[in-house]
């Protein structure tokens, strides 16, 4: 019979060996939820995580928050994708708002228990805020805004506003931490079919979790909009400085309504106060890749192109025939947008 000491030794020994020779292939996706469901960008992160899976690896989801909507989201998450093998839930008022301090500690705690080889979050304002902090606590380099996964340790990400693609190899210890660009990992049809057998849901033990934080959430101001979400819309209509006023920007909104599209803006239009800044498309704003991107009165600065260059079809309408936007546009129309938009409103078919 084993003596307890030798058993402890064996476990410790085998764990050490497993890290050294065969990496434990578990991936953890840090997921967000809203109104009792996983967000679209979290589903894309799961899609990206699926690219890392081999036959003996597993995929865990981490959800945190407080109250019934969290449990509802966890139940849905348990059957959201065929690759998911377990759902971890951290239910506490500490996670009611996505503060980086408790979230980073949570990721650290979960990693210490689960020893994941990869930790993935979406490259949105939530993921970009918490993942690098968690990576620092774990003393590893994170890789942001991954657009392609070529091997379990080799990733492609854009640099210089998307004007170059850098292939990066991660050579450090576990976990390898990534934020992924949602538009590069579209949610496939397989994940739409929910599983018949939901995977187990485990509550994260938070008994060792500290109580006091040096940051507090004060308030959240959300832009109410009935239009589709900019990040995942099929059609995006963008206006630039040439709209000249917030009043004129309504033309863009009207056109968007007709096409069932989301509205975007350039930095110039946001800075001039025509629209709120969460509509900005570009290197420092949202990255979009819709099927149709229509730019009105947009010159096409490097920083704007960075946010829309992967759109399938790009249409540009501009008075200036030399505007750089025409270099990336599939269809260009040189003319006055104040004449062209009303004509388009008249001639475009009603949305299906």
């Amino acid at each position, binding site marked *: 019979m084993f003596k307890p000491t030798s058993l402890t030794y064996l476990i410790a020994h085998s764990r050490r060996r497993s890290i050294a020779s065969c990496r434990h292939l578990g991936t953890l996706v840090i997921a967000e939820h809203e109104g009792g469901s996983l967000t679209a960008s979290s589903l894309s992160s799961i899609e990206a995580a699926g690219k890392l899976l081999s036959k003996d690896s597993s995929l865990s989801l981490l959800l945190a928050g407080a109250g019934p909507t969290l449990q509802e989201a966890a139940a849905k998450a348990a059957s959201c994708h065929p690759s998911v093998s377990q759902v971890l839930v951290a239910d506490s008022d500490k996670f009611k*708002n996505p503060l980086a301090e408790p979230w980073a500690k949570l990721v650290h705690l979960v990693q210490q228990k689960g020893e994941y080889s990869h930790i993935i979050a979406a490259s949105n304002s939530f993921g970009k805020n918490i993942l690098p902090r968690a990576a*620092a606590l774990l003393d590893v380099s994170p890789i942001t805004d991954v657009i392609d996964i070529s091997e379990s340790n080799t990733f492609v990400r854009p*640099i210089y506003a998307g004007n170059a*693609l850098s292939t990066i190899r991660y050579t450090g210890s576990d976990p390898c931490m990534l934020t992924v660009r949602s538009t590069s990992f579209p949610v496939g049809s397989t994940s739409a079919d929910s599983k018949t057998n939901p995977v187990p849901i485990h509550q994260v033990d938070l008994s060792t979790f500290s109580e006091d934080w040096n940051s507090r959430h004060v308030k*959240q101001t959300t832009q109410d909009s009935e239009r589709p979400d900019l990040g995942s819309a099929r059609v995006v209509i963008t206006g630039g400085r040439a709209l000249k006023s917030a009043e004129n920007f309504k033309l863009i909104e009207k056109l968007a309504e007709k096409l069932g599209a989301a509205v975007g803006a350039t930095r110039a239009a946001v800075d001039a106060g025509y629209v709120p800044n*969460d509509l900005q498309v570009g290197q420092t704003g949202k990255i979009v890749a819709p099927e149709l991107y229509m730019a009105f009165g947009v010159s096409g600065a490097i920083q704007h192109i960075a946010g829309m260059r992967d759109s399938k079809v790009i249409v540009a309408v501009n008075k200036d025939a030399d505007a750089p936007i025409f270099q990336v546009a599939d269809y*260009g129309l*040189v003319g006055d947008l104040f004449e062209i938009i009303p004509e388009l409103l008249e001639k475009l078919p009603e949305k299906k």
Partner: protein
Amino acid sequence: MKIMVAIKRVVDYAVKIRIKSDKTGVETTNVKMSMNPFCEIALEEALRMKESGVASEVIAVSMGPTQCVDTLRTGLAMGADRAIHVDAPSTLYPLTVAKLLKALVQVEKPGLLILGKQAIDDDCNQTGQMVAGLLNWPQGTFASKVVVDKEKKAATVDREVDGGLETLCLDLPAVITTDLRLNQPRYATLPNIMKAKSKPIKKMSLAELNVDLRSDLEVVQVTAPPVRKAGVILSSVDELVDKLKNEAHVI
């Protein structure tokens, strides 16, 4: 209270970059370099805090090759009181920069560390969050408004998040990273550029700060993004509607 501002020297935002033929990176020799735009905003915010009496001293820090001194000199001309240059190779990853910043914070003991939200060359958007984690300080990232309360030793930060704005209250000391809309950075005037020449720039070595340079990332290659096929200029709205409907099939 002292404020420390981290600034990075990058290829100027208006430059159309060229990729090296051996695919090892982006050409930076004989290319116009400037202060990272987000770092300018960070420095401007620190200067405004000093002018409003919240801060007593603004220290600009930068790490990298000797030319970083030029960028620091620009920061001093904008109004920073003094600068620290950490002599290091040009390929520093955010984790190393965060460790160096932590070491500098432990020497200088600032009440606030302000950084840009991202550098426009590597587009990482990590350093501020990482140094905040290493210091166990609260973080206010993507800030578009910062109000510091000296008595309460706290900062109220409006953050630009997906879908709107979020307001946080952070106990000082804290780390703040700046979004584009925080402020409009000033230009350095000629007298201030002259004055900056006599302001001190302290040089420090990696050994003094006791930070290991070893990295867990390796650049395999840097390539150009796929080129979009040439588009066409159309003559009328009718033609555009027709193309979208019958050629591109997107409406």
